[in-house]
């Protein structure tokens, strides 16, 4: 007999075994598929094989590096008594140990003494009862717990009844139902964002958004026609603790409830980043909780999980804002992000701001241009598409911006009125055309069928519409978070922090630097 990771190809054999062993409450194919999608990312599923035949499997949840939970353990009855169950359980305990888990818990049917004995042999003891947990039979679940070496959790000495109450919130009818509770459990992560002109504080648990508070200094920058770094930094200092307090109030939690702190370590404005990083360190230090210094761009991708659930692996991400225009290949948002292309000059949002100025529209330029474009003809003026046919996945918007300015000036020089709506619509069309063309090309080239768009420009109506159209035509699934989550915010940082903390990944040191040019290869700074 040998062990190996459980994979999708095992699904048919697993389902056969599942239905024969657990006729009342077998997991559905969809449940297994979802679980396997998280293999190696907070889940550990292992197969036991005799020759090429699957004879058993086991699975475990590994949240936050503290408490591992056995989700399932099954052995073909024909192979009982050969130590396969022990081997599987040993593998789970070893894996939990490698993730520095401090204890393992599980639920077992009260009418299954054989399984209970297996667990007791490995040092598990009863920790509580969930009455009528298994449906429809109404059999109780016995909760068992096992410490995994030092340090032992302080609450392990608590009376079993208070530690594990009969929890009516656990979905009825689910064997080993805690897996479904993962959105309700897992570490509570505070995310702090100060890379540009928004002071953001967000609270996330699992993929659940609990609070998203943002204080923006955009109005203070408007008369300067762009973000003034010192003005932004001063505003961050004043807004920092009040914004975190607002997030806590929104979520109905206190600082003592926070399990980890995540902060944007870069890229961004150096002085602005530093306010958030210093604040995050102070929260981590005073609360005695881990600190994750994360990449702003990866956070823009991770935030989509709050809205559309776990990201498939891999996805292509298009991030467009006033500071960034990037195409990323994302095999794992918490571990591996690869840059495929970026702007060689202006960011797309910067081009919007500059064109808005030329047209006499306010800063930031995105919303007023989008609005003006609605009554304009996107085909009225053929503005250039930078690097459109060069086969690269890089962008250039400086030429487009200059072409718009030239067109408007020439028009004005002839004494003719400037058709603002047509210019806005034609400019916007050029931007959306290039962005979506390259994003779809990236998906096709890398054989990826999911595209995530994030960043402030993702709120643009034409970009959204054209992306939808082109993705549909190419068979690509498009995921765009709602506009409030596309612009800079603390929730996106918390979303990435939650991913890191849930997997028990190593945190950042207290001497974490703010890095204005943090490369995308560094998702979390160590």
């Amino acid at each position, binding site marked *: 007999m040998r062990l190996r990771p459980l994979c999708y190809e095992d699904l048919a054999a697993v389902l056969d075994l599942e239905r024969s062993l657990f006729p009342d409450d077998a997991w559905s194919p969809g449940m297994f598929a979802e679980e396997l999608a998280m293999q190696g990312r907070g889940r550990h599923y292992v197969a036991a094989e005799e020759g090429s035949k699957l004879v058993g499997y086991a699975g475990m949840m590994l949240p936050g590096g503290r408490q591992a939970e056995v989700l399932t353990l099954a052995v073909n009855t024909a192979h009982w008594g050969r130590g396969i169950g022990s081997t599987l359980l040993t593998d789970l305990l070893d894996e939990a140990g490698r993730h520095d888990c401090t204890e393992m818990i599980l639920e077992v049917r009260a009418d299954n003494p054989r399984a209970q004995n297996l667990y007791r042999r490995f040092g598990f003891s009863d920790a509580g009862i969930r009455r009528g947990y298994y449906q429809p039979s109404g059999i109780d679940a016995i909760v068992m717990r096992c410490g995994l070496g030092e340090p032992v959790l302080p609450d392990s000495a608590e009376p079993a009844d208070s530690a594990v109450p009969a929890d009516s919130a656990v979905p009825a009818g689910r064997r080993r139902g805690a897996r479904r509770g993962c959105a309700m459990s897992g570490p509570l992560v505070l995310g702090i964002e100060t890379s540009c002109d928004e002071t953001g504080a967000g609270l996330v648990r699992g993929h659940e958004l609990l609070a998203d508070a943002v204080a923006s200094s955009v109005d203070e920058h408007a*008369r*300067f*026609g762009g973000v*003034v770094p*010192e*003005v932004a*930094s*001063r505003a961050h*200092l004043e807004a*920092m*603790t009040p914004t*975190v*307090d607002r997030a806590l109030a929104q979520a109905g939690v206190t*600082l003592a409830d926070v399990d980890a702190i995540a902060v944007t370590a870069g890229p961004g404005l*150096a*002085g602005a980043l*530093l*306010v958030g*990083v*210093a*604040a995050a*360190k*102070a*929260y*981590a*230090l*005073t*609360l*005695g909780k881990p600190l994750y210094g994360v990449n702003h761009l990866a956070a823009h991708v991770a935030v989509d999980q709050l809205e559309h659930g776990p990201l498939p692996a891999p996805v292509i991400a298009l991030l467009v804002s006033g500071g960034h225009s990037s195409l990323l290949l994302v095999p794992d948002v918490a571990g591996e992000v690869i840059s495929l292309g970026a702007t060689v000059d202006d960011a797309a949002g910067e081009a919007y701001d*500059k064109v808005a*100025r*030329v047209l006499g529209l306010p800063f930031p330029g995105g919303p007023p241009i989008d609005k003006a474009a609605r009554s304009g003809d996107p085909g009225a003026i053929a503005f250039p598409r930078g690097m459109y046919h060069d086969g690269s996945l890089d962008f250039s918007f400086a030429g487009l911006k*200059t072409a718009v*300015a*030239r067109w408007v*000036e*020439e028009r004005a*020089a002839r004494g003719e009125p400037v058709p603002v709506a047509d210019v806005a619509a034609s400019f916007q069309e050029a931007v959306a055309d290039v962005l979506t063309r390259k994003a779809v090309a990236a998906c096709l080239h890398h054989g990826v069928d999911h595209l995530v768009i994030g960043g402030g420009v993702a709120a643009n109506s034409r970009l959204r519409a054209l992306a939808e159209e082109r993705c549909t035509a190419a068979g690509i699934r498009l995921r765009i978070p709602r506009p409030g989550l596309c612009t800079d915010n603390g929730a996106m940082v918390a979303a990435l922090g939650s991913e890191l903390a849930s997997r028990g990944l190593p945190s950042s*040191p*207290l*001497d*974490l*630097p*703010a890095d204005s040019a943090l490369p995308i290869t560094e998702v979390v700074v160590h």
Partner: protein
Amino acid sequence: MLLLAFDTATPAVTVALHDGQRVLAETVTVEARGHGELLAPSIAKVVADAGAEPGDLTAIVTGVGPGPYTGLRVGVVTARVFGRTLAIPVYGVCTLDVLARGAVRAAAGREFLAVTDARRKELYWGRYDGSGSRISGPAVSRPAGIPDGAGLPVAGQAASLYPDELGEPIWREHPSAAVLAELAAERLSVAGTGLGESGSGLSRPETGPSAPGTGLALLPPEPLYLRRPDARVPGPPKRVTSL
């Protein structure tokens, strides 16, 4: 009482812990661009060196400048978060007062200036009497623009930057958090429990009580920027076509 003091308004990152009687631990690291990296580990070290934990702290005091903004903000935001999470009062002290306190002995009864480098050919300065009480400032100006400044002895690490325009450098050091802590502990003990508004822990700079020999109350943890942000309202967009 366990008072945590730090200052990040100069190239030195300095942290000290004071129990109301004496300084228990102190660190100083001079690294002009490392404030963001250095402060938190320095605090952790000082607190641990004294055998304490963050939860044992009873008050925070931070230097509030004047000084280069980026580093200054690291100290102020750290102080504010400590105050918030530990629910303890947070005070500010003018960084030049800390320098002056350190230089009193060297001044030997004379009036003197305490200065730090404000870059752009300017100094942050305060004018002190022989006991270390501030007479004027804090302010920022070119050395020649300091009223009656010429000829006064000068204290601070930047004291010798402008030898032609200022007097004799008497003490060339960065501010020390140990001195900051002593200063704050004195001001707190003189003020007693009457200091500050209940709950907020902040004194009002204009009404707070003064300690003899210090001349000034503790401040709220607000940076003394002294300059407005550099930002100009732009003119019309630059033309891209020739006329």
